[in-house]
């Protein structure tokens, strides 16, 4: 059922848009191409932003910083109820999408998907986003140099969600 819903969502949306437009007399394909041209331009504008962000993230991942931070923060984290197995994911999640997905896939087979740890890891992944990347791409596309409180607010929101994920899975367990 869930599979069907998530697979059918895109075709359903596309069908709804195209059929409604056709009925209302919109020159559908012309409108599509007009919008697509603008989209292509925007995508090329973002490329330099992506190169920069991914280079920074790659260097961090390669340097072993996350392993070091995990070692340092393990004690204090366990004191407030964050299991050792979850800490690396918490640290990397807002910054690197590919690294967190890789870490998650590896961890989940190790701890088992239906254990408390497995459920908590899944909930964290399912309810959070690669904050830094998302913000960089969105604001980069709009040519914003000063994002003001966006990064701070997003990181606070992200960690609130991830801690809530651990808490809920612990209650339900």
């Amino acid at each position, binding site marked *: 059922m869930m599979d069907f819903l998530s697979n059918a969502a895109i075709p359903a949306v596309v069908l709804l848009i195209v059929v409604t437009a056709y009925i209302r007399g919109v020159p559908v394909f012309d409108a599509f191409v007009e919008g*697509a041209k603008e*989209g292509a331009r925007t995508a090329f504008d973002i490329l330099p932003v992506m190169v920069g962000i991914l280079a920074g993230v790659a260097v961090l991942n*390669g340097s072993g910083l996350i392993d*070091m931070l995990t070692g340092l923060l393990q004690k204090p984290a366990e004191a407030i109820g964050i299991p050792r197995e979850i800490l690396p994911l918490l640290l990397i999640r807002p910054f690197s999408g590919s690294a967190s997905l890789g870490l998650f896939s590896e961890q989940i087979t190790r701890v088992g998907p239906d254990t408390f740890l497995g459920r908590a890891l899944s909930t964290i*992944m399912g309810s959070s986003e690669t904050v830094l990347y998302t913000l960089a791409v969105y604001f980069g596309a709009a040519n*914003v140099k*000063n994002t003001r409180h*966006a990064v*701070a607010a997003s990181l606070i929101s992200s960690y609130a969600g991830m801690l809530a994920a651990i808490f809920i899975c612990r209650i339900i367990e």
Partner: protein
Amino acid sequence: MLNVIWVVMLFSGIVLGLVTGREKEVSDAFLSSCSQAVELALVMVGAMCLWSGLMRVAEKAGIVDALARLLKGVFRFLFPGVPKGHPANGAIAMSFSADLLGLGNAATPLGILAMKELSNINGNSPIASNDMVMFGVINAACIQLIPATILIIRQQAGSTDPSGIIPCVWVASFVSTVTGIIVAKALARVGRIPPKYGAGNGKRLKPSDRRG
């Protein structure tokens, strides 16, 4: 902000790599990241064309406006600087819908379109408006009904109940979204105080900022 973050990332990564003898890993990662970015961007060009095109069709068919009218009340609270009937309303509505439905490839292009509309309202200033920050924060909080990728990985890992986490995901997403909205509103109000975020220090305050 990114000017600082980027330097911190590169500096700490490179220095740590040198100290711990991982200079080869750091060097490889740095050099290969650019081709990874190009791959991502190429996928993105296709997705941007597809969804920007479809978005234009939906706009002309009046669907975007209808969706925006539906969310009018919420938007007035979240984005007080967006004028009534401005195309940004529709763009934000479409972007949130794509997020909710988990239309992965569509969500980013639609989000970018919405951010550009908000930037227009802000006079394309290099300093983000309150509405732009709010939009970015809500998007980064990731409201998603069905986290398809995660469910598939759970299934592959041999879970007997892959979708059992969905209610937990909803609660956690809710917590993070609400926290994000509250923090963004609160920080917008203190607005110009933290000078390290360089909030314009009082220059270029727009009507939207004053109201927010």
